[in-house]
């Protein structure tokens, strides 16, 4: 079949017009009699077609057409941090944009697949790109930190400190730059809600701390009971291992308690 005719058929599929299709199938039957030029001529005469217009730069948002409507797309693994550490800054910069484009492409394809109720092949590709990007950013951050430490003696990271929020809970406060110094910036002083108080908050804190304390207490009791059961069932258990596993439990004291003894008469040396 001539390439022009194949093209025509494809167009007919996209348009999906019954009459046009019928006409083409008719022409397919009498294939030898029709030259490609004749088919092309027939196409031009008044039949309205909406062939998809491809924009090369916008097609970067789509996967390779040979992967379209594929059930499986085979790809490699994500970039490891160690592999990225031996790359130059320029290479990392280039790789970032490649990964960014890849992620955009994958997100576009996923969205389209979800829209059309189709299965998106190998969705772990998005995770791989994400992991690569995270690794790349950690490497760049390491370099940034090293440079800043060498030049200024500070890490160059965003300064943050622990403060109490309105509920009296500890949280990190990330500082940012301001045009005005703090004592002049009344709007900022009003906006940051760092103090806490009031009956409701105190009540909440009391109950919250009780909850935390109970969790801690139960964990401690559970560990102690576990150790006791182990010792009761296995009198010759390796004590070093137990001590290593349950560091908070006083095992020497527990061994003397009655509960750690099994239901048997202890052997008495003659």
């Amino acid at each position, binding site marked *: 079949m001539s390439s022009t005719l194949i093209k025509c058929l494809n167009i007919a599929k*996209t348009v999906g017009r019954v009459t046009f299709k019928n006409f083409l199938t008719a022409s397919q039957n009498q294939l030898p009699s029709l030259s490609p030029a004749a088919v092309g001529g027939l196409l031009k005469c008044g039949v309205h077609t909406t062939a998809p217009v491809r*924009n090369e*730069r*916008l097609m970067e948002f789509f996967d390779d057409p040979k992967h*379209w409507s594929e059930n499986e797309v085979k790809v490699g693994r994500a970039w490891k941090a160690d592999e990225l550490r031996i790359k130059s800054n320029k290479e990392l910069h280039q790789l970032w944009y490649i990964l960014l484009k890849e*992620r955009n492409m994958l997100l*576009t394809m996923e*969205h*389209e697949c979800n829209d059309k109720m189709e299965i998106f092949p190998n969705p772990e590709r998005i995770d791989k790109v994400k992991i690569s990007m995270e690794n790349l950013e950690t490497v760049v951050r390491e370099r940034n930190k090293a440079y800043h430490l060498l030049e200024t003696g500070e890490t160059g990271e965003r300064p943050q400190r622990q403060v109490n929020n309105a509920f009296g809970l500890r949280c990190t406060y990330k500082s940012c*730059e301001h045009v005005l110094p703090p004592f002049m910036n009344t709007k900022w002083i009003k906006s940051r809600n760092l103090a806490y108080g009031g009956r409701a908050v105190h009540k909440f804190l009391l109950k919250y701390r009780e909850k935390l304390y109970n969790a801690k207490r139960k964990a401690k009791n559970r560990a102690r009971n576990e150790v006791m059961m182990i010792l009761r069932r296995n009198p010759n258990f390796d004590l070093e291992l137990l001590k290593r596993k349950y560091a908070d439990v006083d095992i020497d004291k527990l061994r003397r308690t009655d509960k750690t003894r099994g239901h048997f008469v202890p052997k008495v040396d003659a």
Partner: protein
Amino acid sequence: MSTRWYPIYQRGNPQLRVFLPNFWMKLVRPTEEQPANVVTFAVSTEMTKHDVKNYLEKIYKLPVVDVRTRIALGETKRDQTYGYVTKKDDVKYAYVTMPKTEAFTFPDIFVNKAEKQEKEEKSLDESKAGFRRFLDRNKKRPGTPGWYSI
């Protein structure tokens, strides 16, 4: 900046530059009919019009005339059994106008889906039939390996 901590804007040079942007952009199928030179994108919610323009021009080398954006409210849904409300994320849509010379229609990705599926099913049926033949042949001598006879 790798720390994602941007200093405040100050007049004069050198100006603030983004070295590793982590914005995402999705090309989505337009719900309404649009002119050929308008493309719809779903973008990171924190992106501004200038961001969208620069992103497309610098990274994708796409000429951009105009960008209009809107934030679509995410759907809320009440759970049938327990009655709690869940909400999907808000999405920012950017309608990007290219010059009149450019045109783009969203491609149909699943045109050949039926054909390929048919082909795959055919090969699957063949392998099934092959296995059935193997089972029939070895009915009287179970447990024989596949290489035992021709």
